[in-house]
């Protein structure tokens, strides 16, 4: 959390002024009991009505000045807190974008979203309240004590004692309850997950007649929750009565000591009333402070979570080499490459070696989890090889600047995702300066012209979040077009034709082959028919190359490929013989 304070820079003035004005307000409040004492001693006992009126006007004036300082303080506090949170969000966003795939995998999307939204909001409230109250409450408490000392030393000693005892009570109760509340929250999470699981798995649970068992599990969890809630409630319920007892015991002591001092002539009746009023102020402020501290501990925890995200450094170092326009990256060479994902037990790729020439088509085929996506992910440096090298145009990918590298490589991921906006805005992701002609050319190759033409808005047809208003196949063709707009040196189709029928898939492959600026194309697929005509086919099994060659070669020599081919073509062969 401490590290986050740097983002308050620039709000230094606000951070000083807000508590200052708040303290100003508090000090006006502290004068009130003195004014009341003066009314009693000078006005009532002295029989001076004009003095009473004067003092009441002073009281009202103090109230007004207090209001003015409070408003000023609130403004500065709000400005600093909100400026702080806005900056924090910006920094977080920029930071998260700089992380590599490995870090994104470890952190997880939902964590990152929580950090950026509710955690930042909590911190904002924390900073705001902190600026407003953290100085004020102790100031009032200690101010009241100091004021008491100016009235009478002996009586003021009672104040010192009371404040110490109250602090001990309030803080020990808080220290005891904070971890208890955390456990309550944890148990509530477990009740939540029991509910969610019951709904998500309703068909299976009912099929296995688990209704009663589920209800029993749920009841057990709620019982524990109730028990925890009662336990923490019991402890925190002690706060009010205890502080009440302490303060009032002090009042009794105060009045008795006051009586002795008045008898001796060293204190007036009005001053006793003033001391009593100060005692009441202390109680009010202490309760406020306790609530504030609870809020602050929560905000602090959120701040720590945000700071821990900011602490994560990208595990990849950016390269420096920027390839010039006449330096194509189209040739791809894997040199004994292995990849071990962070936290994984076994290598996902193991000793992969192959090389392809610019413009060639490469098929990558194999079962689920065999490492196909991992293999192509190394080319745009989504992950770094843990062993061996990946060379593009003869240069190690790690020495090329990431931005420049990714400008030359286009990838069409398995999940076809479009972003909120228009078809055009999505296509321009590939190249912000592309002309309409270029967009149409990309759409033609991606077999997506009819998708666009069928929409009334054509290129300006709105796209909803996630591209919900397009079918899976339409989305897939648009994401292919988006990649082609880049006019890349290397094009990677990561199982991106799975929603296309065989005919469209074939036309797509033909159109790519006929492109004038023909990229080196990687086709990742589970369909033998998609890779059949590739110049080179890489067959993967459990992260290892089971074979490299053309369709005919592999069919003759590679058992894994034969098996895949047989499992898919059985249907057709059976059909032929039917």
């Amino acid at each position: 959390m401490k590290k986050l304070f740097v983002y308050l820079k620039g709000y230094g003035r606000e951070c000083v002024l807000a508590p200052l004005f708040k303290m100003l307000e508090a000090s006006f409040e502290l004068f009130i009991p003195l004014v009341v004492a003066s009314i009693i001693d000078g006005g009532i006992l002295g029989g001076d009505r004009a003095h009473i009126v004067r003092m009441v006007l002073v009281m009202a004036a103090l109230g007004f000045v207090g209001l003015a300082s409070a408003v000023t303080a609130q403004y500065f506090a709000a400005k600093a807190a909100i400026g702080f949170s806005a900056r924090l969000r910006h920094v977080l966003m920029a930071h998260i974008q700089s992380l590599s795939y490995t870090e994104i995998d470890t952190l997880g999307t939902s964590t990152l979203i929580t950090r950026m939204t509710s955690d930042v909001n909590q911190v904002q409230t924390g900073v705001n309240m902190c600026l407003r109250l953290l100085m004020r409450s102790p100031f009032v408490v200690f101010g009241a004590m100091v004021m008491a000392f100016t009235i009478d030393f002996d009586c003021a000693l009672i104040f010192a004692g009371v404040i110490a005892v109250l602090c001990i009570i309030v803080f020990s109760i808080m220290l005891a309850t904070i971890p208890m509340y955390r456990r309550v929250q944890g148990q509530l999470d477990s009740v939540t997950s029991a509910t969610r699981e019951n709904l998500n798995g309703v068909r299976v649970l009912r099929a296995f007649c688990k209704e009663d068992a589920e209800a029993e599990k749920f009841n057990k969890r709620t019982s524990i929750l109730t028990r925890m809630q009662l336990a923490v409630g019991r402890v925190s319920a002690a706060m009010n009565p205890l502080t009440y007892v302490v303060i009032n015991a002090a009042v009794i002591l105060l009045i008795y000591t006051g009586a002795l001092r008045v008898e001796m002539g060293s204190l007036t009746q009005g001053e006793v009333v003033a001391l009593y009023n100060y005692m009441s102020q202390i109680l009010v402020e202490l309760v406020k402070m306790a609530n504030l501290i609870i809020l602050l501990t929560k905000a602090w925890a959120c701040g720590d979570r945000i700071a821990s995200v900011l602490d994560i450094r990208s595990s990849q170092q950016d390269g420096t080499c920027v390839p010039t326009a006449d330096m194509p990256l189209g040739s791809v060479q894997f040199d004994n490459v292995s990849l071990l994902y962070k936290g994984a037990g076994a290598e996902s790729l193991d000793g992969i070696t192959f090389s392809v020439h610019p413009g060639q088509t490469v098929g990558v085929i194999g079962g689920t989890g065999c490492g196909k996506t991992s293999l192509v992910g190394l080319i745009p440096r989504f992950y770094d090889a843990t062993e061996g090298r990946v060379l593009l145009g003869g240069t190690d990918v790690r020495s090329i600047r990431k931005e420049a590298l990714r400008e030359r490589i286009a990838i069409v991921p398995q999940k076809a995702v479009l972003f909120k906006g228009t078809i055009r805005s999505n296509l321009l992701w590939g190249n912000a300066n592309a002309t309409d002609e270029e967009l149409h050319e990309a759409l033609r190759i991606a077999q997506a012209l009819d998708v666009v033409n069928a929409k009334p808005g054509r290129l300006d047809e709105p796209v909803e979040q996630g591209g919900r208003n397009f079918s899976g196949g339409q989305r897939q063709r648009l994401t292919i077009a988006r990649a082609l707009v880049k006019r890349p040196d290397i094009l990677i189709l990561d199982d991106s034709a799975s929603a296309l029928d065989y005919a469209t898939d074939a036309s797509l492959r033909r159109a790519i082959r006929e492109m004038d600026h023909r990229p080196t194309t990687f086709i990742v697929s589970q369909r033998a028919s998609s890779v059949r005509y590739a110049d080179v086919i890489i067959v993967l099994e459990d992260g290892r190359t089971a074979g490299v060659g053309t369709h005919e070669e592999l069919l003759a020599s590679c058992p894994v490929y034969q098996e895949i081919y047989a499992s898919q073509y059985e249907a057709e062969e059976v059909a032929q013989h039917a």
Partner: protein
Amino acid sequence: MRKDHAAQHATLLRVMRYIRPHLLKLGVSLLLALVTVALTLYVPILIGRAIDCIVSPGHVDFALLKSTLITIGACIALTALAQWAQSELNNRVTYDTVRDIRRDAFAHLQQLPLKYIDAHPTGETVSRMIADVDTFADGLLMGFTQLFSGVMTILGTLVFMVTLSPMITLVVVLVTPISLLVANFIAKSTHDMFVLQSKTRGEQTALIDEAMNEQKLVQAFAREDETLAQFDEINERLRACSLRAVFFSSLTNPCTRFVNSLVYAAVALTGALAAASGSLTIGGLSSFLSYANQYTKPFNEISGVITEVQNALACAARIFELIDEPAQTPDPENAEPFEHALGEVVIDDVSFSYTPERPLIEDFSLRVKPGQRVAIVGPTGCGKTTMINLLMRFYDVNSGAISVDGHETRFLTRRCLRRNIGMVLQDTWLASGTIRDNIAMGKPDASEADIIAAAKAAHAHGFIRRLPDGYNTVIRENGEGLSQGQKQLLCIARVMLCLPPILILDEATSSIDTRTELRIQDAFAKMMQGRTSFIVAHRLSTIRHADVILVMKDGRVIEQGTHASLLAQGGFYSELYHAQFAQ
């Protein structure tokens, strides 16, 4: 408005029903609140009296002072005890009530028809059961602790003040409403700012959601700068409108505090003047001043509490709505026991539709002999799951009957029926817990050897063994970390362990590679041996070897027969067959 009121009233009555078992505790708690309020209000008077004992040097009445101070001490001790006991009672009533409501809701959830669950997003129901119930608890607790004592404090203060001085009381009563008006005015005028803030925040959250979920894509297209610029634009707007909302709403406290200080000044003025003319003692003035502080506070609190309580009732209404959802038709009371079916399934003249406007299955009949294999085919979204829904009685037929071994399923308990049917869906769902618990879901007392045998038969043993803790590996809900194929194999192992006489199998499609699929096919084939099975089929071999093929389209069974007879018929099936398989 009146309707709202009536609804709120009804909800309140329901809440009271839940509270009824705790009525005694609640009564005692209210009594204690009364005691607390009375004593808290009495103490300032006593203190005033004590102060009146201390006039000036030589004029201190120590005897009276001492007895007064002792009374104060006793009052304080009693108050503290009452306060603590009251909050303990309130906590018990609240948390027990809330637990009971949650349990009722969850138990009801087990009885709700799938129709309801399918139509309502999980998040919505979860939020009713968790967040709404929590808000309700907070409101209830606040209502118990603050509403009653707040009202009592106001009334008590008024009574005490009137006995001290009617004149000053009038001043206080006249000035107080200003503070409420000010608070109300600020709340109203900041409402629009808050609406704008939450709208902008929503916009930003949507962008964050999109950017975080597709972070990899953003990087692959090197769009980091553009996304950040887009983000910053919204961020800046959010900053501007948040500042207004937060600042203006934070004015409530200083403003009401200012009004309160005016009340205080007014009391000081009238009180001091009265004291100067001798109609009020100085101790009386001191009591008054502390009342002036106490009196205004509950007003501000109560308006807050009332909003909370209303909010709580709204939340309670949402939970009761869930509890009131009609349950599925209850199992017949005198249902015959039914174990180990032979597996004869007869579908007799069945009609079914999800909504009355869109008829789906009409007058459908089918007779499946024990051990027969039924393939259900058709394009995606044709309603193949509808068949599963009806067989499992997740949904009930509108007319006609489905019988197993001559027993109409409606007259069996769902438990008996479902124990006889094993189901493997393409949408693989695993419970959070260990791999072992998941496999043993249908047979919690299964032996280790049985579990391993089932896993082996499902070709799952190999990968389970390679997991960090083998069969004890804890998986989260939805089996995060397992591949789709592995999850499917676990689902098969789960059924493999029970092996009921009737099977419903949903064949895997594209998400699984062909070789894993071969293993799954093999496991399926083993299971189907000698069992009546319904297979949502995608593979030609399954279809060809089926005893009956049901061809579905747009939710209806349009053709049924064997492969040969359907091909000969030259209808939709033969069309489908040639398009999909023959090339």
